[in-house]
């Protein structure tokens, strides 16, 4: 750095600067510091206001209007009409609401538990265990669009899944056209969604597991604790904060279910797989009813917010 020499020169002059000047320099430096700070935060802050804060405010504002994406007329205030319409005269919305909850109610516990089981498996001190970690993680780095197309093909009536079921059960169980059948479509989407995302949460559980000191397990073993007792009394209590994070992230991701629906079923058959976000996009974008779409998005947001707060509150209580 060439800077020191520049700096040394004035200060090493005989009769160094009077104290008053030094103080002024200090104040200027502090002011310069906050000027630099504003300059460095400004680009990010500007972009976040433009593409996060304003859209959030718009989601609130537009929900109370009849705004359309392309319209010669300015949006008109319609009060709570959009919300009333959603809950009283839009059966597809109600269906989307229920489907989204069913999806989350199954995915959250199953995915969290499976991820924990996998994390415990790959936390064993066994040769080659890193490779299993990598394999379990591969679907996470694969695009959900690709995965939806692939499973769409495998779920066909005469597709790979049915032929594997046939082979594995020696013909005892007959598959169906999984996505075409209203009673199996959502379940089929649940399976592939868990298949895709579980590796992510395995890694998070794993990093939680690795923060638990080995000495605790040694102590438990010396007290004669078996594997289950070690899990119950050492592992589980050590994973509490990890669990909160995992439950919140899985819940939010599950409630946002969209791509699988858009690629595989378009909400069908007979609205068996329509979801809140899919319905919001259908209304707010495809049918250009921005105001109504914003209202549905807002309902989705409020649910996410409430669940995140409730989960935090519940886990805080237990501590």
């Amino acid at each position, binding site marked *: 750095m060439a800077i020191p020499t520049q700096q040394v020169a004035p200060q090493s002059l005989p009769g160094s600067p009077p104290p008053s000047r030094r103080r002024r320099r200090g104040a200027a430096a502090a002011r*310069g510091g906050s000027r630099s700070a504003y300059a460095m*935060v400004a680009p*990010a802050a500007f972009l976040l206001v433009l593409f996060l804060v304003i*859209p959030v405010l*718009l989601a609130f504002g537009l929900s109370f209007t009849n705004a359309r994406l392309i319209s010669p007329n300015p949006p008109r205030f319609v009060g709570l009409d959009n919300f009333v319409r959603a809950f009283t005269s839009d059966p597809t919305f109600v269906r989307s609401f229920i489907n989204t909850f069913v999806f989350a109610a199954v995915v959250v516990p199953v995915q969290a538990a499976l991820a924990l089981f996998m994390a415990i498996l790959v936390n064993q001190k066994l040769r080659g265990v890193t490779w299993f970690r990598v394999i379990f993680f591969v679907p996470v780095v694969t695009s959900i669009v690709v995965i939806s197309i692939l499973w769409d093909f495998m779920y066909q009536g005469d597709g790979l899944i049915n032929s594997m079921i046939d082979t594995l059960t020696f013909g005892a169980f007959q598959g169906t056209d999984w996505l075409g059948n209203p009673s199996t479509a959502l379940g089929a989407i649940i399976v592939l969604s868990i298949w895709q995302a579980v590796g992510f949460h395995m890694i*998070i559980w794993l990093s939680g597991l690795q923060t638990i000191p080995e000495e605790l397990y040694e102590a438990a073993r010396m007290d004669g604790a078996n594997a289950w007792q070690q899990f119950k009394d050492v592992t589980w209590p050590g994973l509490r904060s990890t669990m909160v994070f995992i439950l919140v992230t899985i819940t939010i991701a599950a409630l946002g279910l*969209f791509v699988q629906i858009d690629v595989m079923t378009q909400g069908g058959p007979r609205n068996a797989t329509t979801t809140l976000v899919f319905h919001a*996009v259908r209304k707010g974008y495809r049918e250009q009813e921005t105001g109504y779409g*914003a209202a549905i998005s807002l309902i989705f947001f409020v649910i996410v917010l409430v669940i995140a707060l409730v989960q935090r509150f519940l886990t805080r209580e237990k501590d």
Partner: protein
Amino acid sequence: MSTSIAARQGAARERRHGGDADAAATRRRRRLLVGYVPMVLLALFFLFPLVFMFVSSLKPDAQILSDIGSPQAFLPVGDISGQNYVDVFDRVPVVRFVLNSVLVTTLIVGLGLVVNSMAGFALSRLEWTGRKVVLTMIIATLIVPFETIAIPMVYWVSKLPTVVLENGLPMYDFGWLNSYHVQIVPFIANAFSIFLFTQYFSTIPRSFDEAARIDGAGWFTIYRRIIVPLSGPAFATVAILTFLPAWNQYLWPLMVVQQEDLRPVMVGMQYFFQVNPAWGEVMAYTSLITLPVLVMFLAFQRAFVSSIASSGVKG
């Protein structure tokens, strides 16, 4: 190393105890079985769809369908060729889609690293009025899922001003739809990236800054010459965590880009959304856009996994 030592010790113990040797060996074999069998089964469960995809991309449609009933579905046997790939390139503007995605992803990740790390620097190492408020607001925005604001955001970007050339003269127009910037600019600033940088930077000793200040360095110099070079892992983590969603973008470009030559790879796949798609070509296309990410993942798997793990610090 440690395992082989343990194994040798175990063997020594078994020799000493003689009669227990058989029991110990059985116990060990059982332990290995309990350890490996579920992992192998799960590995098959996670790999079979992807193996099926890659293998099918090499087969003609008729053979894909006839192989489904047998284990051949997972084996590259029979009439193997790259014909599906050739056909995909003929039928779909694959190169264009890939270049679009590369451009959009590179700019989101690259500009994001600069903008978010600068913000993280100011938030973690500088004292200024409003710092706490801004930091709290940024953390608060982490709870907002993109799906919530997608619809209002389409409306919003359709109203934003843009510069267009008319007869060689720059003119104002309104609406960001159908452009590259509408796919890039909204995703550069990222609250979670800022949060990760802030966390990481605050672990670097402040004495470094003070020493550089005494030497007369400005804050930007400190950021560029001291903090950035010391923060490789944070930059790698943020790059990985922003790369994946940028490459996989679907909902947003689906809504804001109708013009085919601006579409990214995931939306380009809509070419195949029809009643009876040519499955061999579909598998070739999905393999093509998945392979680069998989290769990158396998090459940097340690960094990938630790990035994901560090994203858990939020809790």
